[in-house]
């Protein structure tokens, strides 16, 4: 006699429970602590007499029922010598192979391929099989259809050929997304194949990448089991990542990290210009330690704009090189369409003082600069009437993402404002009897973001003497960002294309207000001049797999993922960008079973995998071979157990009644 699920025989140990219960029932009476007896009245005490024989009978019946149930669950059967036929149950299996940057570690690919082949040998030619790889997302290599399309005897050899061609990439792994994608695909195919359960076998070095947390928000298909095969990899791997490059002072700050799992402590950090080592720094980093280091880039030739930083001394080289580009020091340009009038102390006068005191701001009063495509202004300020010819480049500038500040100094500018805004406005002059105060500010708008903290929100110390009241159309797209008394809009904004038009109906010049003399003026102007760059993607450094790199390098370029320097066209200019490994790929902590289980993955552990497979094989034989005898033994056992339990209930009821009568 054999058992399909011999493990259930352990259940026979449960007969200890009734034995124990029968023993403790000998206690004369239960004691029960209750909160208060206030609402209780006593009952007459019962005296229990029990016959030993009756109890033994009950105990025997209960124990027998448990044994029969345990045997039924163990599924006993008799097997003949003849082997099972070919009607095996077809398993649905997907191999999901990690090909992220950390899989570039030494020997990992060899171990991975060996493991894949070993597991592939356990797959039957008649099974449904699928092979996928994952980095940031998962990609199909061999789908179910391709597998089924090959002649049965060639299937495994075809897959092995593909396995040998596997090559890891440079992107960071996003396990959560990839697992979810794969599980979803597997679950969908399960219906198609009429299967009950599918196995998702994951082959990974266990390096977490972006982590598994997102799986929590996904309801994992109940029919998809997860089997994780961890590929052992070297843990002695220090990494270097970029913190900051200060172009003005020509300094670079990097972070060097030695993971807690590492055993190597002596490292060298090198600043390299191409192949030439310009500077070298020895470092002793205990496992788990992080250190920041600043290299002086003045040691590089002045014309050099790109360099690398290299770690040596650790065993793994895949993440040892950091590619860096020194950004160009650029001034933020502001084009002022008006005249500089120092005597009048108007808006331009204060703005000019501000620009002169800052090295990063450059103010120009040359209107032609706007038409010059080489001059990329951060902001255009208008405080005079515009000609029709001037309107077009301003609109184009705003459409392209620029910020236009319109200082509405008098009602005569209404036509120019209409021209820029593209809608009708009616402007009237308003003079305060004494002064206006500012209220109703929209702190959620970027212009007032520097003042969002409670302590900076008080604008009641700024007096406004006069303003222009703008009456807008009913369906206007202008929104008010701040108001003066009597509901007069003080600051208006309107999106134009990618950019924005800001209209100040009372400005900071001394004719209008005392804003320029207030401490809020500088953060206010700073918000204005940095606004147009806030959404621009002028990054120089990207992580491997960043889709923006592909976009910059052009659709046909498939390089861009490997760390290095790349040239790309920005208009007529050729610029450079640097691609580095995601720092997440250098972390050496290996995910354990508990980490997968924590996010709700139904994990089949390695320890039970062997028996799981064996029993699956045996159960297939038992379920499908016509030669196996006595298929229904378990049913008879269960029926007998139920009958015994019914009899036990009768006997127990009678016993209880007898006891009550005795009382």
């Amino acid at each position, binding site marked *: 006699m054999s058992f399909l699920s011999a493990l259930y025989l352990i259940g026979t140990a449960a007969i200890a429970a009734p034995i124990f219960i029968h023993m403790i029932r000998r206690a004369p*009476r*239960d*004691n*029960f*602590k*209750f*909160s*208060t*007896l*206030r*609402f*209780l*009245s*006593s*009952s*007459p*005490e*019962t005296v229990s007499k029990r016959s030993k024989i009756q109890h033994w009978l009950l105990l025997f019946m209960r124990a027998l029922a448990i044994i029969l149930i345990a045997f039924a669950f163990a599924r006993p059967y008799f097997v003949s010598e003849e082997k099972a036929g070919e009607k095996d149950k077809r398993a649905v299996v997907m191999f999901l192979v990690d090909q992220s940057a950390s899989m570039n570690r030494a020997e990992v690919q060899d171990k991975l391929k060996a493991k894949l082949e070993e597991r592939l040998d356990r797959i039957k030619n008649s099974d449904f099989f699928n092979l996928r790889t994952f980095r940031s997302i998962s990609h199909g290599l061999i789908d179910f259809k391709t597998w089924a399309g090959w002649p049965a005897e060639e299937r495994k050899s075809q897959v092995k050929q593909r396995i040998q061609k596997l090559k890891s990439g440079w992107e960071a792994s996003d396990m959560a997304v990839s697992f979810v994608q794969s599980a979803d695909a597997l679950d969908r195919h399960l219906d198609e194949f009429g299967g009950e359960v599918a196995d998702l076998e994951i082959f990974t070095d266990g390096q977490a990448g972006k982590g598994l947390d997102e799986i*929590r*928000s*996904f*309801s994992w298909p109940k029919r998809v089991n997860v089997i994780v095969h961890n590929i052992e990899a070297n843990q002695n791997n220090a990494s270097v990542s970029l913190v900051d490059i200060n172009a003005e002072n020509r300094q670079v700050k990097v972070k060097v990290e030695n993971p807690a799992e590492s055993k190597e402590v002596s490292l060298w950090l090198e600043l390299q210009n191409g192949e030439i080592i310009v500077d070298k720094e020895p470092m002793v980093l205990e496992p788990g330690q992080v250190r920041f280091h600043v290299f002086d880039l003045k040691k590089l030739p002045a014309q050099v704009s790109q360099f690398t930083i290299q770690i040596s001394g650790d065993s793994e080289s895949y993440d040892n090189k950091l590619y860096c580009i020194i950004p160009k020091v650029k001034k933020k340009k502001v084009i002022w369409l008006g005249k500089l009038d120092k005597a009048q102390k108007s808006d331009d006068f204060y703005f000019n003082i501000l620009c002169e005191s800052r090295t990063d701001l450059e103010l120009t009063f040359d209107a032609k600069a706007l038409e010059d495509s080489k001059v990329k202004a951060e902001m255009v300020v208008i405080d005079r009437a515009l000609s029709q010819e001037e309107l077009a480049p301003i609109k184009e500038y705003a459409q392209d993402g620029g910020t236009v500040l319109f200082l509405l100094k008098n009602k005569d500018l209404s036509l120019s404002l209409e021209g820029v805004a593209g809608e009708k406005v009616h402007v009237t002059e308003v003079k305060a009897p*004494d*002064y206006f*105060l500012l*209220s*109703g*500010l929209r*702190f959620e708008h970027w212009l007032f973001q520097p003042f969002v903290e*409670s*302590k900076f*929100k*008080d*604008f*009641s110390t700024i007096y406004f003497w006069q303003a222009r009241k703008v009456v807008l159309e009913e369906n206007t797209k202008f929104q008010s960002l701040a108001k003066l*008394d009597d509901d007069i809009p003080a600051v208006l904004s309107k999106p134009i294309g990618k950019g924005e038009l800001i209209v100040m109906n009372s400005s900071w010049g001394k004719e209008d207000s005392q804003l320029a003399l207030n401490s809020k003026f500088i953060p206010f102007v700073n918000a204005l001049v940095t606004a147009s760059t806030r959404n621009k993607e002028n990054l120089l450094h990207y992580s491997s797999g960043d889709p923006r790199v592909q976009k910059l390098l052009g659709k046909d370029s498939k390089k861009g993922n490997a760390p290095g320097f790349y040239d790309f066209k920005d208009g007529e200019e050729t610029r450079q960008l640097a691609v580095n490994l995601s720092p997440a790929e250098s972390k050496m902590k290996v995910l354990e079973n508990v980490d997968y289980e924590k996010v709700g993955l139904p994990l089949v552990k390695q320890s039970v995998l062997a028996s799981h497979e064996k029993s699956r094989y045996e159960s297939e034989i038992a379920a499908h071979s016509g030669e196996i005898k006595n298929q229904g033994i378990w049913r008879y056992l269960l029926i007998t157990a139920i009958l015994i339990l019914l009899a036990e209930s009768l006997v127990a009821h009678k016993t209880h009644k007898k006891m009550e009568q005795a009382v």
Partner: protein
Amino acid sequence: MSSQGQNNRLHKFIDIETLMQLKSYDLRAKIVVDSYLNGLHRSPYHGYSSRFSEYKPYVEGDDLRYLDWKLYARSDRYYIRKYESESNVKCQVLLDLSLSMEFNHIGWSKADYACTLAATLAYFLYGQRDSFGLMSFDDDILEVLPAKSRRGHLNHFLAALEKRGKSEQSQIATALKQSVEVYSQRGLLVIISDMMMDLDQLEEHLGYLRAAGHEIILFQVLDPLELNMDLEKPALFEDMESGEKMFINPSVIRDEYQAKIKDHNKALQAICENTGILYQSMTTDIPLNVALADFLRFREKVRK
């Protein structure tokens, strides 16, 4: 519906069994409050407390209390100071920690549940920058903490919950009398008790507190077994407070017991209705979010 949405919905009610397995009241309170607030948006209404939001020109009907007189003196304008959070509530928790509250049939005692409820309210009030105090009692006063709103005070509050009573009977009258004397300033009183006691003088004492201007909410915390006496086996019952023993066959006395406890609770409810107190009966298997929601509803009602 997306699985994210489902998760959010699940978080609305924290599994009480899992929650009570946590040892720290701090953590329990945080979980309940955070789960309750999850998905709620910050109130768009401006209140009147510490964080300045902005000035608003005064219009007829605005509360003159919030007029900024300094600004008026400086500018000759009427402006209202607006704030980000809501007004301060002074909340005192009267917590019964007598021995009867130690009754435990579903895995955690009434006292444990009551302390978690008190910690939850304190944590919530702390987040609102309201002040909260504690008076725990059995037949005497065990611990008194004046109402404050600092973080350090929250720690003291949580530590005070650890102190349990040993007295043979619970006597709420002492605590109520003491409250009348101690809490001279109007505020919100939250009484958490099983109320398994004589109700003779309760109405009188609660009346004094109401007359002093306090708003009161009473949470009666009971074990489910205390309501339904759902036991099968006869046993020797021992009173947890007096130690008195009595042989009880639950199946025989169940109906009578249920009638008695129902009458007792009805009487309690009538007292609360007469004195204008919000009465909320809870069993220890109800998620604490529910209690917090009741508390908030009541507070809103008080405000109106």
